């Protein structure tokens, strides 16, 4: 039922004179254009955009959409990404007039509803983190990391300390070192224990008075809770450093354990993951950070505060910039559309719901681990939190079947692939995160698919997938002779 015209490029459909969006004629007194915009400022070349009709644009993109897998259509156990269900009510509510059309420069007294929402969200995120001060500004997790590192940096500067190093385990997500580098720190990567935990002696050997921050994901990227996290934190704190918790895996512990309670000084959330953003084909995200009180003054502005709370006057919300703020990390308030969705989710769940979310995420992951461990060994053991990392290493060694082969073949079975080749510390890694919004039936079907696949012929798997619109694109060619845009045949 594939529409064969569908894979043409937008530009192939263009014909001179076709129109989709058409605008009213000008209704104002006309002055010659040259009088208002000098000729020298105007473009000398004709615009190059395509010319299409509205039905054409719609058919093109609707058909293109069907070449995607997505949470609404498929099980999508992409590890570290928390591909949970995105409630439809969020889309409706984030689209309400008064929310979707609120201008960022609307004065605060005309945005009290929005500020109230954002204020509540700050409070909720502080409570889940166990860290009292929140900035909603960062646009995604990576920017949350960067922002928090700048906060740390400002904090140390304020204390008159010069600390230049950021430490992180080798299982860390790539954004951790990249954010540290961007924030001007020297990056120190630490090896982990054979089980993939933070290696305390390795840590200790690198801690010194130049250590600003130790960044750690907990549960870590292997899906394991860092059991020694309090000792880790104590070591870092003793060396005068701060502990940063990468909160990408909060879906395992929200309502059950709090970063602030296990030694974290700063953390980020990925609202698009844990609080069902949604993921939008790659984004947008929202990466709020929560920090300890002594770091609050350094947060970027604006932050919502409430006046007159507790007094007789009606509560009034205001935007303020903390006194020693590191400054803005983006224009305007933040990725509010995503924050609104996160707020909707948290208000739907409530306290018990947040906990039930983590419990079921962990239950689902452990169940799948139990189903799979015989066919696909999980080096880290029998238990996991909300996700686990299986390894195709044995299969690779014995029969030449790689993690990638299995991932690709899963697509034929109607399942999105897990994250592969991350974390780097596991060979032939397959990082599987089912989330709580999947059923036992689906997990069973997925496990069955894996069992079927590992019994298949290796050659057949190397050529997989077989039932997708394309198969095994030539990545090398793409990178060697990059074609990064369409060019007209004539050019």
């Amino acid at each position: 039922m594939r529409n064969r015209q569908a894979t043409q490029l937008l530009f192939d459909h263009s014909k001179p004179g076709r129109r989709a969006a058409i605008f009213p004629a000008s209704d104002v007194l006309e002055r010659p254009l040259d009088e208002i915009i000098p000729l020298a400022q105007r473009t000398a070349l004709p615009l190059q955009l395509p010319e299409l009709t509205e039905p054409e644009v719609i058919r093109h993109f609707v058909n293109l959409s069907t070449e995607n897998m997505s949470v609404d259509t498929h099980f999508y156990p992409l590890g570290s990404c928390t591909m949970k269900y995105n409630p439809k009510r969020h889309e409706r509510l984030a689209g309400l007039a008064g929310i979707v059309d609120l201008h960022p420069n609307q004065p605060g007294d005309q945005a009290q509803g929005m500020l109230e929402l954002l204020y509540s969200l700050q409070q909720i995120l502080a409570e889940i983190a166990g860290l009292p001060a929140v900035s909603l500004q960062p646009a995604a997790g990576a920017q949350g990391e960067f922002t928090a590192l700048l906060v740390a940096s400002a904090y140390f500067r304020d204390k008159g300390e010069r600390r230049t190093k950021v430490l992180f385990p080798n299982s860390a997500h790539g954004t951790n070192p990249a954010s540290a580098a961007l924030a001007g720190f020297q990056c120190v990567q630490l090896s982990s224990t054979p089980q993939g935990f933070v290696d305390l002696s390795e840590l200790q050997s690198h801690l010194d008075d130049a250590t600003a921050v130790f960044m750690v994901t907990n549960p870590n990227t292997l899906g394991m809770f860092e059991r020694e996290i309090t000792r880790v934190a104590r070591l870092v704190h003793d060396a005068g450093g701060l502990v940063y918790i990468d909160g990408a895996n909060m879906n395992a512990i929200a309502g059950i354990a709090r970063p602030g309670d296990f030694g974290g000084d700063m953390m980020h959330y990925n609202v698009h993951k844990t609080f069902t953003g949604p993921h939008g084909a790659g984004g947008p995200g929202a990466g709020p950070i929560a920090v300890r009180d002594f770091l609050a003054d350094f947060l970027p502005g604006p932050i919502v505060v409430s006046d007159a709370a507790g007094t007789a006057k009606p509560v009034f919300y205001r935007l303020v910039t903390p006194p020693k703020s590191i400054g803005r990390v983006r224009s305007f308030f933040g990725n509010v559309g995503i924050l609104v969705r996160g707020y909707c989710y948290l208000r739907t769940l409530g306290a018990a719901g947040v906990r039930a979310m983590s419990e079921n995420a962990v239950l689902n992951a452990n169940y799948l681990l139990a189903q799979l461990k015989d066919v696909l060994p999980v080096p880290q053991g029998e238990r996991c939190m909300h996700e686990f990392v299986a390894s195709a290493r044995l299969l690779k060694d014995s029969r030449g079947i790689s993690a990638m082969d299995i991932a690709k073949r899963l697509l034929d079975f109607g399942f999105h692939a897990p994250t592969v080749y991350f974390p780097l510390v596991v060979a032939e890694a397959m990082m599987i995160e089912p989330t709580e919004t999947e059923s036992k039936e689906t997990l069973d079907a997925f496990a069955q698919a894996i069992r079927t696949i590992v019994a298949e012929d290796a050659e057949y798997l190397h050529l997989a997938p077989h039932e997708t619109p394309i198969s095994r694109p030539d990545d090398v060619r793409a990178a060697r002779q990059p074609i990064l845009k369409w060019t007209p045949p004539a050019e």
Partner: protein
Amino acid sequence: ATCFGGLLSENPSFAYCVGAETCLSYLYNTPEQQREMLAKIGVDSIAELFEQIPADLRLNRRLALPPALTEIELEAHLTELAAKNGEGRSRVSFLGGGAYDHFIPAAVDAIASRSEFYTAYTPYQAEASQGSLQTFFEYQTLICQLAGMDVSNASLYEGGTAVSEAVFMAMRITNRHGKVVMLESVHPEYRQVCQTYLKQLNCELVVVPCPGGAADPDEVRRALDDRTACLVVQHPNFFGCLEEARELAELAHRVEALAVVSFDPVSLGLLARPGEYGADIAVAEGQALGIPLQYGGPYLGIMACKNDFARKMPGRLIGETVDRQGRRCFVLTLQAREQHIRREKATSNICTNQGLLALRATVHLSLLGKSGLAEVAELCTRKAHYAADCLTRLAQFAGLELAFPARPFFKEFTLRCRAGVDETVSRARAAGFDIGPKLSAYGKIGGQRLDDCLLVAVTEKRTVAEILGLAGALRR
């Protein structure tokens, strides 16, 4: 209603079943299934699974969160919050300052709400993501066409960080890490972001004052030197005025610095394109391309550059290639620039980007096309000039004047209110018109001089009746 969210939880005093039913809409496993699953795992309870967490780290109370709401209640709650914004719905917006009330065709929403787009993630598996990949390839093409540039990435966070990323990129390309020159007429928030980003790096950010509403080329020439990585220009600038972009780019090139330009995508329906006047890196806030205002985000960071700089770009790039059967297809490419491969040596830390907004911009530009973009640009500039005329000349408003009468502007202008900015804003507001932002909100821009100024933006949505209505409201 029965409930099983936390049925097997360790602590029966967590009375999940009271008030917590609402979350169950999204959970699947029934108590019976949970029991089966636990049996397969080989534990007795969910609580046992959490023994991985040391007992003293487990929270021994329920979170103090506001009560759970069912869908009906949540909708009532959000509707109430929404009603507290903007004093009702029929307000007419002349608000500007980096985000604008442009028209969004319904077709944009229709495509952006396709499940297959908005509930997918980064197209790591090309075979299961050709929809996103081809769309972003088309996006890159459209941005290049629009800006007259060679290469576009697949999005950055928003206009402010796009400027900072461009500055970092310029530093990498020029290998000059000590100095960046930026015009004061760049959006003050973009400047603040850049200051934040550069703070750690021992890099001097020189701001060239623009008391006349746009840069004085002589001043700029004086600020540039052979240590300068780039000159950052916004055109049309924060005050709405046009810069002498070509001349400024030349000045930058003269010291072998890069010309970084932050443009307004809508303006390119009329104005010269960054590629036309020599920009090396062109960035933009893409909100005007079919993205709703939603109090400031998510918006779209656009970045395009010259061919040579492709491998220095931050963010994702989509490339065309062929599959094993020779079929044309699209993939994430040049990933060696990115954090997941290069880690601390990456060109940026960005991971999750603004995919859905890039999709919106793609559909928006497809719908507008060649003629539509030109129409919008012309309508905006005509209406803005008409509004400026009405507010300052026609109606003889004592006390209202253009702050920079000598400068051509595009869709937005800086209005000086001799009678006081607050007074002016309140009068407009009482009549249902929103104008602003006030420039006093940005602290010092060119000293205190601009505290009696505000911005007025006019998009294609504004009608002559609305413009006259605003003028009428401000008449003394």
